[in-house]
Structures are given as structure tokens and as C-alpha cells.
């Protein structure tokens, strides 16, 4: 062993050598026992590396640590007596830490230890016992049911989906003015829960609902991660949520004593949008609660001083020139004004917050996901009479394509379906904590509950086609799964344009949803058309439907003519002549010619014919 080595071991303190020691294991033991006796801070970790023959002591921050129950002489130090004392609140967790019953190990120290996964497994050699087997997973994984039956890649996905789920994100959501908030109408506790889920009290702010799911295709409408929903369920509030959006505006002060003012802008204001826009504002220029608003309606009327200082002050003492700076409901949005708040900033300027609410009923294109990284987009909402139904008349809320399962290795999803079904018919919450039971044992247990209630033990049932009324040839697996509605909803993303705004400089169409923009026909798309040889289609996309401009080119010199407003004719700047040819060019090219011209370089276009 190490002590027999004739060279001394280095001792590292937070990565720096602080000395050498002849008997490293004794040092490590000493530090460890001092820590367990409470002589040293419990945040110190010490380990000995046989390969490096070095002791490393770590006291710095940023190490991932985990509690373990200490085992000595083949016996866990956390005895039933102590557990009883904790239950009676005689002692608490800190007592365990201080008295060397539980200690935190970091990844480095853990390497020196032999950790038993369960009490039954402990031998003389073991040094520690896991608090629970499931604690080998982290919190995020442990809040999902049956994580030991799912693949790692899906866990990474479900961690993302959990963040995107709509639910009861805060119980005071009514008092909050988050810039965007999504609140589920009827959030439910999951039928299949886990210890970690309960421990962090997720059931107090749930983010999903228990869906009755059948593994079935539906006329190809749930191919490739599409899902089919039951219209009856949707009409009864399945997945329904409220979307809140807050508009904020402030009466800013500017250098020179000028400031913004909340009011309905006068028609003389620069950028006045027309009377109809401001029609819903009350006298103070702010919209009233419970007012129905739609795209383009003013919410917070505001006038601001002109952007550039003009010398028209004192010109007869007339009305001050102002600019309209009203906050308007953005394109594609509708809703009801939920709440209006007046407040003040730290700089003592007035702030107005207007919260708009609108109901989001699940529709085609909305995204849902189970707690197994199984996401899907609604492709069809079927009337209940056309949905498949069971002998008892149960109609599934959601039809999941069976092809979603085998390639993704999310068997936890199937297990949750079975457990959810058993929990629903048995009237209990089912525990889906990782490794709490072996898979086959779980299936047996759920099967017993199902059989007791007159269901098939593996969750299969004969389903009847809602359209023909005939039973399907094969029985279908169905159950109850906890589904999250994710905040990616079409109603917030949909955008169309055929004609519309163009950029000032280039006369090309604008880009982006907020500007009612077009989709970019980019370089690679251009290459595709060239590659196909469709020259006229390419010209149409890039010229006729973009920045076509007709310019007049002087027949004599090839420069672009301009319009003389006094003589009311076109004039060539060079020859002063007036014989021109009309030429179609892209406006961007005209800008290029102008810019070259601004450098005092003459360009001329030589035209054929």
C-alpha cells in the first residue's frame, strides 16, 4: 500500500503543493475523522490518489458535493432510532452532519470510497451508503418518472421542455407584471409522481395535465411527431391557458428640460396615426381595464419632444411641436386589457404598465410534450364522435403515434401510461421514483390494480373506430400520461405577407415578424434557381417582387437623368439633354451608382439598341 512507498506523498491544498507527508493515508484519516467529529468544517474534502501518490485537500468553492450516510464496520450510522428522532422533530439534518452520521463528499473524495446503494448490500468494505438510490441522478432527472427506463438524450430534452412548460409559474401571477407570462387554466398534479417532485413541492405549482393517451395512428395525422387531440377535451379546457403580455412606457426627461407626457396625441403631432387608433384611450391617454384591443390599437398615448431641436420656439407662442410616441399593440396580437398600473421610477418619472391577457386554446401547430422528451405538435383536433373509444366509452384525449417509442428508447413513457392508468382507476398517486422497484415488479403491481378494476393487466384494450363503429383488429395500449403544454404557440408566431413595407435605403422588403417582413430569399436559394436554370423566375424574385426601379438613362452619355420640377422635364446632369431610355434596374444598383457618384467617380451605362 501507499504507506510502504519510500517516497513521500505531495499534499495539495486547493491545487497548490503545501508540503509532503510520509504517511498520506494517516493524514487523510486524521482530517476525515476531525471533520466527522466537528473539529473541521464539513465543507472540507480530502482524498488520496494512489496513482499520483498525492493527498489533495479542497476547501474552495465550485465543487459538486453530495450527502452520503457514513458506514462503519458494515453498519450504517443512520439507525432507526435516529430516524424516529428526526420524525419526532427531536433532531434535524444539521445534527446528522455535525455528529458524523451524514457527510458531504465531492467527486474527488468519492473516488476513495465504496458506496453501497442499499442497506442490504452493505459489507465490511463499504464506507458509505447512498441516501437513496435515485440520488445518483440529479434533481431534474429525478422529477421525471421512471428515468432509469429512458435514454440519456431524452433526459436532456425533457430538461429543456420542463423549462418551457406552461403552468402555475407563480401563485401571485395576478399581481405580477412579467413581460410575458403563460398560465395554464386547470393545472393538475401528476398521477405518476416521484419523491424528488414531492420534495421540492412541485405539486404546488404544477405545469401540466394528465392526458388519456392511446398509442394509435389516426389517418396519418400523427406521423413524425404530430399529435391528434380530442375536440371534446379541448372544449372542456384541456391544455387551455392564459397568455399575459405587459407593455411598459415611461415619461422620460430629456436634457434641456423637455419631457414626455402621457396623453392622447393631438392631430398636429409628428407621426400621428389617425383618430381611430386612439379611440379606445381614456382622457388621461391610457387605456382602461377590460377593454378589448386588437392589432394596431393604442395602449399608452404619449407625446415626446421632437427628435431634433428646431428653432420654432417663440414663433407667435403657438403650440409646442411634439412627436407621437404612443405604444401600440403589436401586429398579430389581440386580447383584453387585464390590468393597468401607474408607478414611478427611481428617477421620479411616471411609469405605466398595461397588461394584456388573451386565452390560448390549443390549436393546430401548438406544442405539447410528455415528461420523457416526447414532444409533438398538434396536427388535428378531432370531433369526439370520430375518435376511437373503448368498450366503456372512454375517448382518449390524445393519440400518440406508436412509432415515437421504439427508436427513441423512451420506455418510461410506456411505463407512465400504465402506471397513470392504474393510478387513475385505483384512485392513488403512483410512485415513479428511479430504481424504487424493478421494472417487472412495477408492471405486476400496476397490472393487479388494473385487473381488480376490470381492465386488462398490460393496459391493452379493444378500441372501436369512431367513424365506422367497428372494433380495431388489434387491441391498443392506452393509459394516462402527464403532458406539458409548451409555450411555443402558433398564434404568437404566425405571420403572412404578400405585399408590404420596404426599407427606405434599398427599397427592398423588410425582414422580421415585427416589421411585417418577408422571408429572405438568400444566396443559397438564389444558387438553387441558377442551378436549375430558371432565369426568369430568378429575375422575378430578385427584381420584380423586390426593388424594381425604372430609371431614365441618357441616350448620349449613359448617366441617370433627374426630374426638373421647374421646367417639368427630365434632364441629364451631364449633357443637359432630354433624350432618355427607360431602363429597369434594381434600386440597390441605383444606390450603388449614387454612392460611387458621391465619391466623384462618374459611371455610365452603355445600352444596347
Amino acid at each position: 500500500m501507499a504507506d510502504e512507498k519510500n517516497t513521500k506523498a505531495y499534499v495539495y491544498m486547493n491545487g497548490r503543493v503545501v508540503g509532503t507527508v510520509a504517511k498520506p493515508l494517516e493524514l487523510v484519516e486524521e482530517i476525515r475523522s476531525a471533520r466527522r467529529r466537528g473539529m473541521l468544517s464539513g465543507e472540507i474534502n480530502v482524498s488520496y490518489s494512489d496513482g499520483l501518490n498525492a493527498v489533495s485537500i479542497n476547501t474552495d468553492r465550485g465543487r459538486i458535493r453530495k450527502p452520503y450516510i457514513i458506514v462503519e464496520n458494515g453498519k450504517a450510522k443512520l439507525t432507526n432510532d435516529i430516524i424516529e428522532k428526526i420524525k419526532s422533530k427531536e433532531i434535524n439534518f444539521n445534527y446528522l452532519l455535525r455528529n458524523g452520521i451524514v457527510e458531504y463528499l465531492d467527486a474527488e473524495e468519492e473516488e476513495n470510497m465504496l458506496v453501497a446503494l442499499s442497506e442490504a448490500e452493505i459489507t465490511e468494505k463499504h464506507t458509505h451508503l447512498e441516501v437513496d438510490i435515485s440520488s445518483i441522478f440529479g434533481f431534474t432527472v429525478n422529477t421525471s418518472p421512471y428515468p432509469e427506463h429512458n435514454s440519456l438524450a431524452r433526459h436532456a430534452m425533457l430538461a429543456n421542455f420542463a423549462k418551457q412548460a406552461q403552468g402555475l409559474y407563480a401563485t401571485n401571477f395576478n399581481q405580477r407584471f412579467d413581460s410575458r407570462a403563460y398560465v395554464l387554466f386547470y393545472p393538475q398534479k401528476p398521477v405518476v409522481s416521484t419523491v424528488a417532485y414531492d420534495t421540492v413541492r412541485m405539486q404546488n405549482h404544477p405545469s401540466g395535465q394528465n392526458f388519456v393517451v392511446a398509442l394509435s395512428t389516426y389517418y396519418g395525422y400523427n406521423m413524425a411527431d404530430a399529435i391528434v387531440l380530442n375536440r371534446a377535451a379541448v372544449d372542456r379546457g384541456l391544455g387551455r391557458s392564459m397568455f399575459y403580455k405587459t407593455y411598459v412606457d415611461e415619461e422620460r426627461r430629456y436634457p434641456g428640460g423637455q419631457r414626455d407626457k402621457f396623453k392622447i396625441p393631438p392631430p398636429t403631432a409628428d407621426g400621428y396615426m389617425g383618430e381611430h387608433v386612439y379611440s379606445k384611450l381614456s382622457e388621461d391617454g391610457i387605456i382602461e381595464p377590460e377593454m378589448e384591443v386588437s392589432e394596431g390599437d393604442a395602449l399608452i398615448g404619449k407625446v415626446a419632444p421632437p427628435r431634433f431641436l428646431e428653432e420654432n420656439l417663440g414663433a407667435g407662442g403657438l403650440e409646442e411641436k411634439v412627436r407621437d410616441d404612443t405604444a401600440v399593440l403589436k401586429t398579430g396580437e389581440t386580447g383584453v386589457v387585464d390590468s393597468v398600473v401607474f408607478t414611478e421610477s427611481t428617477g421620479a418619472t411616471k411609469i405605466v404598465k398595461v397588461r394584456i391577457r388573451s386565452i390560448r386554446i390549443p390549436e393546430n401547430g401548438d406544442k405539447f410534450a410528455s415528461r420523457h422528451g416526447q414532444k409533438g405538435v398538434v396536427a388535428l383536433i378531432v370531433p369526439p364522435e370520430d375518435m376511437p373509444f373503448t368498450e366503456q366509452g372512454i375517448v382518449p384525449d390524445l393519440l400518440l403515434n406508436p412509432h415515437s417509442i421504439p427508436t427513441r428508447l423512451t420506455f418510461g413513457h410506456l411505463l407512465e401510461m400504465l402506471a397513470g392508468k392504474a393510478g387513475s382507476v385505483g384512485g392513488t398517486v403512483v410512485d415513479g421514483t428511479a430504481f424504487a422497484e424493478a421494472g417487472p415488479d412495477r408492471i405486476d403491481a400496476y397490472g393487479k390494480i388494473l385487473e381488480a378494476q376490470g381492465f386488462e393487466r398490460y393496459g391493452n384494450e379493444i378500441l372501436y373506430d369512431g367513424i365506422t363503429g367497428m372494433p380495431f383488429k388489434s387491441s391498443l395500449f392506452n393509459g394516462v400520461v402527464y403532458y406539458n403544454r409548451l409555450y411555443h404557440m402558433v398564434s404568437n408566431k404566425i405571420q403572412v405577407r404578400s405585399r408590404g413595407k420596404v426599407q427606405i435605403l434599398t427599397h427592398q422588403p423588410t425582414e422580421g415578424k415585427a416589421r411585417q417582413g418577408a422571408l429572405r430569399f438568400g444566396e443559397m436559394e438564389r444558387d438553387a434557381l441558377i442551378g436549375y436554370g430558371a432565369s426568369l423566375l430568378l429575375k422575378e424574385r430578385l427584381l420584380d417582387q423586390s426593388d424594381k426601379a425604372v430609371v431614365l438613362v441618357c441616350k448620349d452619355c449613359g448617366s441617370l437623368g433627374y426630374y426638373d420640377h421647374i421646367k417639368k422635364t427630365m434632364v441629364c446632369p451631364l449633357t443637359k439633354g432630354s433624350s432618355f431610355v427607360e431602363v429597369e434596374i434594381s434600386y440597390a444598383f441605383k444606390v450603388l451608382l449614387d454612392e460611387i457618384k458621391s465619391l466623384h467617380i462618374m459611371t455610365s451605362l452603355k445600352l444596347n439598341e
Partner: protein
Amino acid sequence: MAEKNNKKYFVEYGEPVGIIAAQSVGEPGTQMILRSFHLAGIESTVATSGLPRIIELVDAKKKPSTPVTYIYLDQKISKNFDRASEMLKKINEVRMSNLARRALENFSKGKIKIVLDKQELESEGLTIRQVAARIEKDMGLDAQPVENGVIVNMHTRNLKEIRNTKIAIMKMLVSGVDGAGKATVRRDDDTGEFYLVSAGSNIEGIMQIDGIDKSKTTTNDVFAVYRLFGIEAARNSLAVELKKTLKEQKISVDERHLNLIADAMTASGSVKGVGRHGLSGEKRSVFARAAYEETLKHLVHAAAFGETDKMRGVTENILVGKQIPIGTGSVKLAIKKEDMSKVMPKK
């Protein structure tokens, strides 16, 4: 007759072959691993592969990052492993620094003693006497073989001269071909013949050694091929290297696309890259060049020299908004229907 004419070409007139070639290479190229991991092993000559190699070829880098020469041997030698191994000694680039354990300068006596490593000498098939002779012959110095090395008598006590000579001696080529690198013997599994692979690209030097099959020996250094064999060979080398690299990555691209790239890069008579210093930078059209890289440089040059853009390419026509002279835009109406009566003989 019509059938015969149709077989003259395989691609329709006006087909944008360049764009199609670019797309055909570019799309599967996205699947290539950026820096392909090297296979672990003792192989000393691992050529660059994957995307870095494609970039190297297409940019026409003067020196490949990993030059490799495949040296094929004459019939008599190639069948026999021992004889093939002997060829290594003629090719392997051995410098004095590879052989010497240390070099001791005696400034007071004006002598340099080079202590040679016996094992190294043996493995390269050299003797101390030979090394001394080589120093005398190549450097014109007075070198005496001793028991464990060579003593060079400088006949001077100039410090600078002694130090410089020592450095020169250490860099001296003792045996093999300059720039040939270290070679290894490999066996062709199909023919059972042995050939050599060296991590250098001095193909000119290697070709001068007896026992080499000059018709088969080749290198992955396109410029070495160009210097020795000319532009046609360089084109072939380029095409072969592109094909080989893609094949290694199990990417199937029709070889005609790659041939076209190799043709375009060598059409001028020298090997040119496709970037701004090569094909794209030498386009006829001012606008096409300005639209790519270094916009200002090309516009300023055009202004200073009064260049005219003939508007015959694709890029410049898209820029101004004209129909492109490619595909359906490559044909023009020769005569209007109304004007036909003027040309047609009256009935």
C-alpha cells in the same frame, strides 16, 4: 445524323455546371467531420483528411500540411520485403542531429567532436568512417573518425566560425533524399507487392534513386506534381486527391463535378485556388469581383482604370436586375416574327 450530334455532349447548353458542382460538393461536405480524429497507432505518415484537406486542396496551398509520397519499386525489389526495406536506407532522410548524441566544441584547440549514437548508426546502416567521409566530401572539412564519433579539425580558433560550422554539421544530410522524410514499408494487400510511404514530398529527389518505379510513384503534393510533370498532371493529381479525400469520408460525389473543379483551378496554366486570390479574384466582371470580397479594392481599381463591365456573368446581372445568361436565359431571339418576312424568300 441528329443522333450522332446528340452524343457530342452530355450536358445541355446553358447548364450552370459550376453552381451544380459547387452544390454537389458543398451539400455532402456539411456532413464531414470538421477535424476528423486521427486513427491511433504507430503510423508515422497520417495524411490530413476530411474537410481540412478539401480546404487545403481547393485553396491551392503551396505546401500540404502533411506531404506524403507513395514510392513504388521495381518488379524485382517490390516482391521481397528485405530488399524493399533496404531501399529505405537510400530514401530515409537522416541528418547529423539524428545520429549525434552530442557535439562538443573545443574552442582552444579549434576542434569539434561529434559523439555518434551506435544504435542509430546501425539502424541506418552507416559506419563512423562513412559519416566522416561524408563530412569531408560535403562540407570540405578535415574530419577524422575516432572510436565513438568524428573529430573535425577546424584549423582556426575563431569562435563564431566554429559555432556556425557545428550548427551546419548538425543540419547536414548524412544519407537519404533531402526533404523525403521518414519512410515506411507497406504491403499492397491486393497485389502482395511492397511499396514505401514517406512523409515528405521531394518527388524529384526520390525519382533519381535506382530501383524506383517512376511510372507509379506519386505524391499528394499537387505543386510537387506540377513542378515535375506539368499542369495536366497537376490537374489529375488535384482531381484524384479530391476524390480520394471524399471517398475516405464515404461521401459519394460524381467525379465529373470534381474534375470540373480541378479543370477550373488549372485552366490558366498554373494551379490557382478558388478564393479571392484565385478564381473569384480573377473574374472578368468588376461587379462580380466586388460582390465577393474586397469590394473597395475592385471598385477603386475599376474607377482608376476606367474599366467596363460587359455584363456577361451571373452575379453582375443579378446585381443590376437583368435576366441571367444561364439556363433559360442563355438563348436569345435571333429575329422577330414580324421581321421574318423581310428575310424569307417570297413564295
